[in-house]
């Protein structure tokens, strides 16, 4: 390394290496170094990995200068920023990212509206406790054909939910989630939430889905379902503007409103004869708090009695679930279509809300927060309808959009907003863009036609996304964002 430096014919730049990662700290005397000006990321990474520095083997590193990644040589960076070669550069080194490589895609009969994963590290896996056997990873997909499908990791359908005549959804399923390894919930355009009992053969090759509970209460399509396996509670957001809070146990759930039950309709329409009858229950609480379709509702990851809801009426509301009262309302400037809570160390989570205006707004739900809009993530070219935080850290998330892409964001990489972006706050751009594999590298269609992404989940197994191309696509999700 020293030889490299000495041999370098050109100018040299004095750099200071810093890092926030505790296991990769350099001794103080080694932090400052003279490096050739034309060195690039790979060279710097090799220097850091060398025996004289970290002696860490071959960890790929990326380097942040003033919050942006170094993508050119140091010299080019200096000239483009108008700095002189004498400047002492502070280089923050972080573990390098690996592109989210495509791994597999599972074919469906219709559009895939939602995805959930059951794995050791997924919430459902944790809620399952000891009963979950390691390696029995399952993938749940909801489809517009009204069916739920459970896949194993190798792409085989273990089971499919029964059709409408047999206790299944009578219309498209818009959302589905694992409650545990033997229970799951789904909701859709038939305005019902269904709780299913999932049993699996011992060999894991086949299984069975039985409806255990039908929850009535919403008067519009249910677009979002959030579950908490620990407290056995469900949270739904519906197009009628209501947020539903439900229990998954027959005992604790109240009776359903008779007017909403399918038998209530008197007109001569096609009767749905359900051979399998499940218990029909109503909501614990149905909160008509939005005056436009509610699009998403999530639990606070820290406190399960608090929920956040997003709606097309431009607001994010904080709901106290015990009383059903709205604690705080945050207005944004665009209709919101998706919501995710990103836990923050020792505090309220940061809320990421996907908007119809093609970006993701990060809001601080605390009533005391000075600025509600923390950051804007720009890059999507269509409605952002699905968000999932990273299972690895608290500063990255993946978003799925109708433009046919999933984008991975690192909240640490920020820049000030330009004038045409509104000039306020800070803006981040995607780290990686996951295209739909079904497009086979072709140019994206106008308005994401044929390749819209409807649901995305980021688990340690990978990034699972389903969309209009009738496919569940799995991408590798490890190390795509610095820890």
């Amino acid at each position: 390394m020293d030889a490299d430096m000495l041999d370098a014919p050109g100018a040299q730049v004095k750099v200071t290496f810093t890092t926030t990662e505790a296991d990769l700290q350099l001794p103080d005397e080694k932090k400052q170094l003279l490096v050739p000006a034309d060195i690039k990321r790979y060279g710097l990474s090799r220097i850091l990995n060398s025996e004289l520095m970290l002696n860490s083997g071959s960890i790929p590193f990326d380097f942040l200068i003033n919050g942006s990644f170094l993508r050119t040589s140091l010299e080019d960076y200096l000239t483009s920023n108008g700095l002189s070669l004498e400047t002492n550069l502070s280089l923050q080194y972080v573990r390098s990212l690996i592109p989210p490589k495509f791994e597999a895609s599972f074919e469906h009969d219709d559009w895939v509206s939602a995805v959930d994963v059951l794995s050791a590290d997924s919430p459902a896996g944790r809620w399952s406790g000891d009963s979950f056997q390691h390696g029995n990873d399952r993938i749940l997909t909801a489809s517009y054909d009204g069916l739920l499908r459970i896949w194993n990791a190798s792409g085989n359908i273990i089971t499919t939910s029964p059709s409408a005549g047999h206790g299944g959804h009578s219309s498209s399923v818009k959302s589905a989630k694992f409650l545990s390894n033997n229970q799951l919930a789904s909701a859709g355009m038939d305005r019902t939430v269904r709780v299913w009992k999932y049993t699996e053969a011992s060999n894991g090759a086949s299984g069975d889905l039985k409806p255990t509970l039908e929850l009535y209460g919403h008067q519009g399509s249910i677009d979002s379902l959030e579950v908490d396996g620990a407290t056995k509670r469900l949270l739904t957001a519906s197009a009628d503007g209501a947020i539903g809070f439900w229990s998954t146990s027959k005992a604790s759930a109240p009776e359903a409103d008779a007017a909403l039950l399918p038998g209530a309709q008197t007109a001569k329409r096609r009767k749905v004869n359900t051979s399998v009858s499940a218990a029909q229950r109503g909501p614990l609480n149905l909160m008509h708090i939005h005056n436009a379709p509610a699009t998403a509702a999530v639990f606070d990851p820290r406190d399960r009695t608090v929920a956040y809801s997003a709606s097309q009426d431009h607001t994010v509301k904080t709901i106290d679930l015990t009383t059903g009262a709205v604690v705080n309302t945050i207005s944004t400037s665009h209709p919101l279509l998706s919501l995710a809570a990103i836990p923050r160390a020792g505090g309220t989570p940061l809320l990421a809300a996907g908007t119809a205006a093609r970006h993701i707004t990060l809001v601080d739900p605390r009533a005391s927060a000075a600025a509600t809009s923390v950051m804007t993530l720009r890059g999507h070219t269509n409605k952002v309808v699905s968000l999932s935080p990273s299972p690895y850290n608290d500063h990255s998330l993946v978003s799925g959009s109708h433009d046919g892409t999933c984008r991975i964001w690192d909240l640490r990489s920020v820049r000030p907003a330009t004038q045409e972006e509104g000039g306020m706050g800070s803006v981040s751009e995607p780290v990686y863009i996951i295209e739909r594999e079904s497009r086979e590298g072709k140019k994206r269609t106008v308005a994401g036609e044929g390749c819209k992404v409807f649901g995305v989940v980021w688990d340690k197994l990978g990034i699972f996304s389903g969309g209009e191309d009738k496919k569940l696509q799995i991408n590798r999700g490890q190390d795509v964002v610095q820890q």
Partner: protein
Amino acid sequence: MKAKLVEKKRKSRDLESDSESDDELGNGLFDGVLSASEDEEDYIPSDQIEEDESESEGSEGSDDEADGDDDDILSDDIPSDIDGETDMDKLRRDAEELEITEPFVDPKPKDEDTEGRNYRIEKDANGGERYVYEEIDPVYDSDDSDAQGPANTIGDIPLTFYDSYPHIGYDINGKKIMRPASGDALQSLLDSIEVPKGWTGLTDINTGNPLNLTDEELELVRRVQMGLVPDGLHDPHPDTVEWFTSKQETMPLSAAPEPKRRFLPSKNEAKQVMKLVRAIREGRILPYKPPEERQREEEEKEEVHFDLWQDEEPSAPNPMHIPAPKLPPPGYEMSYNPPEEYLPSKEEREQWEKTDPEEREKDFLPQKFNSLRKVPAWGTLVKERFERCMDLYLAPRVRKNRLNIDPNSLLPKLPSPAELKPFPTVVQTIFRGHEGTVRSVAIDPTGVALATGGSDGTVRVWELLTGRQVWSVKLSSEDPVYTVRWRPTKDAFILAASAGEDIFLMVPTHSSVTPTLEKASREVLAAGFGYAANGNTPAVAPGKEPAGKWSRPGTRLEDEGVLVKITVRSTVKVINWHRKGDHLATTSPEGQRSSVAIHTLSKHLTQIPFRKLHGIAQTAAFHPSKPIFFVATMRTIRCYDLQKLELVKVVQPGAKWISSIDIHPGGDNLIVGSYDRRLLWHDLDLSNRPYKTMRFHPKAIRAVRFHRGGFPLFADASDDGSLQIFHGKVPNDQLENPTIVPVKQLKGHKVVNQVGVVDIDWHPREPWLVSAGADGTARLWM
């Protein structure tokens, strides 16, 4: 002299008789004769007239001859001269005359020589003949009218003719005048006789007698010879008679008062004098100088030159003055002894000489001289100076004043589109499924469902955000679905669609249609059947077809949710709901009288409000808040008050063919789209004429629509496949004018068979727009 007068009188008498007897005489001739006689009558003793007479009176000669007057053979001169000069005095005087006046010594022969040609014939300017008479010299004392006629009447012939006769002529009485004695006989006598007193020795040529002079005559001759005054009585030195003296006479000679001119200086003279004085002062009259002297003086006078600019003050330069550009200072090459490298080579020299003087790069060739004194004069100096002057003169150095106005400041102040956000910018969802043109789009009042109707006769309902088709029904296999419109209230979920002559009312299956809502919707639709069954329908005249027939569409459609069918007389193209959802207005342009119909849902009743329409109805709409009904024909829009049943207003957009109209939710403004490519904004309070006319599309505008959810937006759809989004803010203040700013043009729809975008609709809350295109897609723009 008396004889002459008598003669004249007789002549005139003859003339009178002639004129009396002979009428055939020409007047001109007669005049001339008369004038001639007049001339003779007031006789002027001048030779000229006599000569004239001798010329002009050739004709009279015959008369004179007839008189037998032998005088007339001769010219009148001589007889007149000699007429009556009988006495010798006259003769003598004549002789003296002859002697004294030398040039006229012999006028007679001259007259005779020029007899008939006492004039010269000259050519005048026209080439004709011109008679030029010699100037007549009237000799002094030519007036011989008093002279006696000559004693001898032989005329003007020499006496030598009579030498052989004893007489020398005849006197006036015809008696012979005998020759006086002469010759030797007399000589002897004379010798013997003392020369008588007054004898001169001359012979009177007329009488032949010796010419004797009297004493007076002699005295006269002597005085003449002495150079004295001929008249002896003349006193050359008479005593002075003081007629006017300084002495005051007691009796003045004249009693007349003394005239003013005697004692007043003459003004006229003073004027004349002053004129002269002035002329002299001004130098117009110069004292006379002989020409030689004058010439000498002129030669001596020097040329004087004046310096025009000698008194010129140097003034500050004009602020607009631009000094002439300076010539570049001479370089090495202009030196008389330039360095070698500046000297042209042979090729360069040839090249220079070959090129045209106009095209030469420089107008000289550097030359080398050993010393400055060998440098010749610069040959083209004058030419160069002249060209420089011409350059400076012909290129006027004028500072031009630019009009310092920013052209942008002249534009009306409109907010920039960036400030007017939000408005739709890109297509976000494409709804594909219809075969053929999508004819109509509508977003339901809750904003979650989109209904489309297409040329394939189907009505489809879609999930708005995802583009998922959730419901579809085929209304007709032949007719396209021209229009779909949601009932504008949220208490029921009803969609109206038209296919051919039928209007269908349906309750689509949709996630938001709960059993309760569906029941409510069905009740709304079914209510009228009961009403009709109760016989409340107004009596229709027998044999007259009702305006609309309400019926159930049949089991197949009823299973799909299509519950009511209204059949009218002609193809329905436009449906518009009343805001309360009980009435809907349909327009069928081909329907003549019944082209506009109002259907009442609760009574299942169809009414035709107009007996007669002015033109072909294009569209009809309800006012958003007042009971006013708008009917647009091809050229005009009529506003009717539904309560008073009267025409309120006629709006004339000036378009040739209105395609669609929309009323601002505030109710005071109206937009009109026309097939002749215009989009017109009407302020209904302001005028019948458009407030603003906009032409943004090269093709026809098919649909216009206001946003009804609070955004000041409106849009139009054109056959060029594009949509134009406008910001159209209607201020609350009545006095202000609406602000209209085009903010975005949306392109994406393909043009199929010259048809682009057919219909548009706004989302009820958000600035989202849905468009229906001929390319078989509907698109959501946001």
